[in-house]
């Protein structure tokens, strides 16, 4: 995944699209204020400076799907692992909720179900049937909308072809109003994400930790750019 911060407007469409797609319930006022709201795709912000020299930055952060994930190695029951597609997957039925993965994730993108997900009855009809239900006491996280990837793979297999570039996109990328999120195969040199990841503007978060994150950011442009 590549996120172009020069296009990003901080609108949080990705955040809501993700929750609707993946049946991530809301936490409510009390729990949200305790920091227990789950945002598989989260928008974090930073404000600094003094008037009128102020700076404010927004950064959408999904799971980085690290190639060397610090979270998987600490799981005592192998409930989380790096799958062959490169996604850091979570096997919900296996999770016992020790939360070591959460504390070991440097990007703080793993979320714990402190309560059983609460949906008012009326909302229940609007849940996505492609997504596995989570119960109280387990960890959950962004998986690049793995249900969409599977579907596309099956379609491709049926048609005896490879997945085309841009054929699968997670909910966040699909909705992004300013087209700031790109998704594709980083191993495929012809793909758009590969090309963008080699851009001079590209960087990754906390690269020096050696986690090899698979989400690239493109930094904002300067006045004199193009």
């Amino acid at each position: 995944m590549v996120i172009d911060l020069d296009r990003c407007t901080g609108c949080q469409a990705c955040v809501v699209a993700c929750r609707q797609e993946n049946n991530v319930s809301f936490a409510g006022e009390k729990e949200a204020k305790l920091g227990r709201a789950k945002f598989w795709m989260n928008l974090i912000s930073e404000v600094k400076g003094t008037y009128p020299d102020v700076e404010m930055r927004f950064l959408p952060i999904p799971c980085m799907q690290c190639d060397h994930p610090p979270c998987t190695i600490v799981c005592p029951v192998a409930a989380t692992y790096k799958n062959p597609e490169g996604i850091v997957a979570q096997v919900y039925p296996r999770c016992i909720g020790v939360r070591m993965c959460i504390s070991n994730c440097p990007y703080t993108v793993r979320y714990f179900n402190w309560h059983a997900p609460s949906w008012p009855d009326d909302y229940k009809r609007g849940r996505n049937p492609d997504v596995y239900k989570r119960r109280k006491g387990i960890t959950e996280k962004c998986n690049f909308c793995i249900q969409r990837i599977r579907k596309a793979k099956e379609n491709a297999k049926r048609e005896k072809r490879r997945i085309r570039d841009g054929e699968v996109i997670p909910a966040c990328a699909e909705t992004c109003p300013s087209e700031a999120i790109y998704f594709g195969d980083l191993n495929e040199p012809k793909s758009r994400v590969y090309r963008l990841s080699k851009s001079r503007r590209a960087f990754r978060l906390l690269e020096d930790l050696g986690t090899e994150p698979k989400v690239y950011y493109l930094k904002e442009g300067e006045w004199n750019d193009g």
Partner: protein
Amino acid sequence: MKISRRNLLKMIGAATLGMALPDELLHALPKKGEWIPYDEQWSAGICLQCPSGCGLRIRSVNHWPVKLEGIKDYPVNKGRLCPKGQAGLQALYDPDRIRHPLRRKGKRGEGSWEKIPWDEAIPLVTQRLKKLREAGRPHQLLVLGGRYRGHMLDLMNRFMEAYGSPNHLGNPYRGSEGILKGHFFTMGERDFLSIHWEETNYVLSFGAGLLEASRPSMINLRGYGSLRRGRPGIRGKLVQVEPRFSVTASKADLWIPIEPGTDGALALGIAHWIIKEKRYDQDFISRHTFGFEDWKDSSGKSHIGFKTLVLKEYSPRQVSQVTGIPEETIIRIAGEFSSHRPSVAVSGRGVGMQTNGTYSQMAIDSLNALVGSFDRRGGLLLQRRPPFQNWPPVQRDAISERGFSQTRIDGAGQLPFPFAGEVPSRLPEEIGRGEPYPIDTLFLYYTNPLFSIPESEKFRTGLEKIPFIVSFSPFMDETTRLADLILPDGTYLERWQDDHPEPGPGFPMVGLRSPVLDKPLHDVRNTGDVLIEIAKGLGGSVERSFPWKDMKEALRETIKGVFRSKRGSIRAKEFDEFWKALVDAGGWWDESYPFGGWKKKFNTPSGRFEFYSQTMERGLSEWSKRSSKDVDSILKELKIEAKGDKAFLPHFEKPRLIGEEKDYPFQFIHYKLMTTAEGRGANQPFLQEIFGPHLKEKWDSWVEINPETARTMGIQDGDPVWVESKIGKVKTKARLFPGTHPKCIHIPYGQGHRAYGRWAEGRGINPNDLLGREYDYLGGFLSHFSTRVKVYKA
């Protein structure tokens, strides 16, 4: 063959029995680890979480909608949706929706209701209106409307005309009237203009919340992306002029903090430099504008032109003193704005909510005229309407003629609001006094004045004097709670309704909502259908004005015009075929947009862009004749300082404020966030939970104070504080935000509901509880940013 779970099980059963299956079915069977198919459908609709009017692809599984996406080629949103659009299913499935018609039991506002069937509820209205008409008092019906879309506004206007009441307040643009009035005086334009983002190089924004709360929101979000990275080699520039450091300011190349209410002066300062340096578009100015140079009227009297006025009074030095912006900055922007064409100057609430809003907007429009950016590629687009077929003329009888010609109850179109279409904020007093006549029945359609208009207590007192209130709201909002009868509408996913976004992409387009479910989720009805039924019940000429079975039939008739034009994205031989394609596609549009239609689109006395507004001049002269006052004394009545020619030219008027600086040291400016940009998302938990990302605030309100200022007052981040104006006071949490102007405080808009469902009610504070009512009389609108406040620890 469609494969549902049931079919699949049957097939598996068949297979185990060893029966032969055709190849294609065997192929469709799930292999190990594969998905079990279910019944999935995609349908089209149009979003209504804000007035953008985005095309929706609705994914339904086993009948129920589960996800909203954008329609890929829909001109407004091109397959994308904003957070409000994405949260739309929470409006549909809101557990606190009104589920059936309700009649009040017990006292008003008490909240006790009884369920009644539709065939009892509608006659309650019809009989009352019939009696009112028979008594010759049809003008005592008042309609407050809000978010009309497409032909719903035409339908309500039609109803009022046929029934015989002038008292329709249906402005869907509340809060942004200043912008519209500016466009009206300079161009005769009644819509907002949208930016041709794909090709513009330089966007100079005067307080427009382009990335948070703007119109059309999706076009602006999408446009921002393409401004920055949509064209190889060109990274368009954004300059944000605003006292508060907003999200838009943070994404801009340059943020220019300005003294609140002085945007007009800055625009004129920029104009000064452009004119002095002769950097303006001379061809456009000479061929398509009026009043740039000094001129003589038909009687030989000479008048000063825009050029003379600006060169004399608005040098960057003079402007610098008013705006607090350094001279060099003004010159720098003027240089860039005029040399990076196509460039556009746009405005937002910052301009439109001041007492000088109309003039400021005229000044900003003048900047666009100077660089000739109207209706040009990369400029500002004038929205074209689709070729609708007109409905047959309204039938009026003697009663409706008499009723319709009564003066309006809100005094719109009368002094001191000569140009106002409506003045809703004056209603409380007018209704309360029963002058010029009492109101008998009130309809509320998609509006919630007890939340959205300042001094709501007075409004409530006024409303309580109205004997019968009918609300069509799908939600139990503050105003609906006062109703005597509720005839609930469904949500935007459940009804037939058209939608032509203004502003949209410039070229003509129309979207169509069609019900996503076989029938609405609850026992609710499209207000369009209900209105037609009421009209039929009234009989006579009112009935004859509505020759349709329901809203869908009325829409089909008007859309026949689009079908017959044989243009645009859908063409068909038969109308039924066209209609079906329209329902499937969600909309029709004609992209062959004719730019440069100035002669047709500038609807002014001169047929040109008017620096000197003859519309205003003629209007006031007319009033002068009628009221036997001279024009200058009328100007004084409108609280305009300028006299003579200057009053009809863009100029700077000092903003007027409520409260003295020594008692109330802060200027109070509320702002909107992406999540509740139309103030209506408060009942959706997904939006509440991401409410204020810049301060990581959720589910709550706060007041932003400059950290230095707060320190001198001994206020720390998170402290509870009182914010008090002459009008009222509210208690909330202080947040120290360095983007706050030291002389201002800010509260986000959208919270503070006293009703509106479990997620919204009793949460945070409503900025309207602080606001007094000050006006831009010329434009005829309430200026929301004119109240001073003080802050102290609670």
